[in-house]
Structures are given as C-alpha cells and as structure tokens.
C-alpha cells in the first residue's frame, strides 16, 4: 500500500506512546499494519527530519554499545498536530466510506 502523505501521521502516532529510534518506528508501523503498510525504510528519515523541523518531534543522540543512536519523541506541538490530523483522517475516512457505501 502506498504510504505517500500518510507517513507523517503514522510516525506521530507511533511516537505517541513512547520515544523510539527510526528502526523501531518502521517495525512498529509494519507490525501494527500486519505488513500491509510496507514502505522503503530509507524515506522514513527525511520524513522524521521534516517533522523535527516543524517542531512536531524532538531528537537526541545516545551512545549504546559504541553505537550512536538517535531517538525521536513527540513534542506538545506534535501531539496537537496528531490530534488535528487524526480528526481530519477520521472525516476523510468517513466521507470515503459514505461514498463507497452508496455504490
């Protein structure tokens, strides 16, 4: 399934419950969607950086076993954005459902 446009929403939602690094975010999205939402993993990082630039997520680095790992967490602004996007998604999904239901 093509994730274009929905990836930021999925990322924000994945980060709602806890701070995660990129690989964990990818795995979480794949696991929750039972593999249906499969995407090229490299493109996650530009999306994360974009969210960070907009102030929706924050990142910090930690060294674990000699490896520098960057973690991402949702900001208050990101939480508000997530709520807004979820509401919008809900409206969109209901509208599509109504159209399909008429068919």
């Amino acid at each position, binding site marked *: 399934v093509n994730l274009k446009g929905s990836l930021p929403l999925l990322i924000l939602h994945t980060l709602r419950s806890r701070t995660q*690094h*990129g*690989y964990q975010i*990818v795995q979480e999205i794949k696991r929750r969607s039972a593999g249906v939402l499969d*995407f*090229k*993993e*490299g*493109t996650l*990082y*530009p*999306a994360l*950086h*974009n969210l960070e*630039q*907009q*102030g929706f997520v924050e990142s910090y680095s930690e060294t674990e076993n000699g*490896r*520098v*790992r*960057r973690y991402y967490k949702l900001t208050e602004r990101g939480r508000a954005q997530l709520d807004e996007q979820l509401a919008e998604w809900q409206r969109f999904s209901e509208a599509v459902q109504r159209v399909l239901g008429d068919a």
Partner: protein
Amino acid sequence: MSTSVNVELQLWLTAATRDVIPSVQERVRQEILDHFEMAVEAFLEAGMSADDAHQAALDDLGTPEAMAHALRAVYPHQRFFLRAAAVCQLFAALVIVRLLVERLLPRLIVEYTFLLILAQGPCLLLALHALTRLSLQQHRLERPLELVKSALMAWCGMTLIGGLIEGALPGVAAVALGLSVLLAMIGVVWGLAWFGRALRDTEALSTALKRWLRLLFNAGAAAVLGVLVIAVLNLVLPDKNGSFAAAAALIGAGGIVIYALLCASLTWTFVRAVRQ
C-alpha cells in the same frame, strides 16, 4: 559484512546524500548505518545467511534516488545555495560596476546604458528567483514572492522599454519608468511583509541560516529600494546633480555595498561548508 555489500552500502549512502550539506550528510549516514545494522541483526536472528541478511537490509532501504529526492524536499540543495549566492554576487557586482562607471567614466555609461540595463535586469531577476526558490523550499509563500518577482519583472521590462524609446518618445518613456518604479515598490513592500512574517513563524530553518537569510534579504531589499529612490529622484528632479539625488545615490550605494559584503560572506560560508 561482506566487502561487496559494504561497498554497495557506501555507494548507496553517497548517492542518497550527495545533494545535502555536510552536516546533514553526516547525520543521515549515521542514522542509516545504525538502521542497517539493526535490520541485519534482525534478519540474522530470523535465520538468514550473513550475505542474504545484508542484501535484504539494503533492499529494504529502497533506492538512493528516492532517498535523495525526499531529502531535497526537506533540506535546501547545497548546489542551490552556491548558485543563489553566486547570482546575488553577480547582481551586486554589476550594480557596483555600474555605479563606479557612472562616477568615474560618465561618458562610457551614456554609450553603454542599454547594454547595462540588459545585463542588470536579468541578473536582478535571477537573484530574486534564486532567493524565492530558496525560501520556497521551507515556506509556503508562493503568492507573495511570486508577486515580487512579477513586479520586478515588470520593472525590468518597462525600464527596458523606457530605455529603448527614450529618444523618440520622452513622455511615454518617463511614464513607463514611473510606473515600473511604482510596481516594483509595491511588490517589494508586499513581499517583505510576507517574508518577514514567514521568518518569524517558521521553525523550518536553522537559526544561523535564518539569520543570514534575513540579513541578506533586508540588505538586498534596501539596495533595491535605494536604486528605486535614485530612479524616482532622477525622474522628479530636473537637476540630476542636486543634493537630493546625491543623497539618494549615497543611500543606494551604501545598501548595495552592505548587500555585496553579505553576499560574499554567505558564499564563503557555504563554500567552506561544502569543502568540509
């Protein structure tokens, strides 16, 4: 990791990050390498051979072109920074050369005014276009900045028309020049207001870059306005060597010098960043 996969990953990273500035390259490389190693570990745990695990992790990353495209949408293109700075410098240099020629070799400027207008107009547009594109990568300002560009384009076009018909139809030429100045001023003021608001609101640009852009844009606008003031006074005052015109020329020249210095400094900053 086998040598071929290692080389392939390095090539992937180079292709994916080639267009972004070095600090971003480093961050992306670090994240992708960490991601890749975790993916390989997971595949190994799932029972894959080492080579298959590396290949599968690499495949999961997608193509470097897709990554490069996605990064370009988030970060300003490093070659674009250089181009924008170079175009700004070219414009500033042309204006300064023209001012110097006006002062030192006034006879030459009469003979080559047409050529100078031809060169200066497109350079101004290119500089504005470069700055517009630079800002559009991070802001949603299409309409106001497009208006500035249109106004300046009209300015250049009408100045050119005015210059062409100056000898034959002086009255029409003066009206064309006056209108062009008015259009450009409206466009610049409108654009400045929007640009200033966007710079305050957005968190998209890094603080340093934001500071540079703000300085550059304000100085550039000051230079453009200075030149416009000169043009207006030259039209209004019959004695072009009067004190008002001289003061306006001084203000314009000051703005242009500041603009040129900032352009040079900005170029140096990016050249140094690219060389790192």
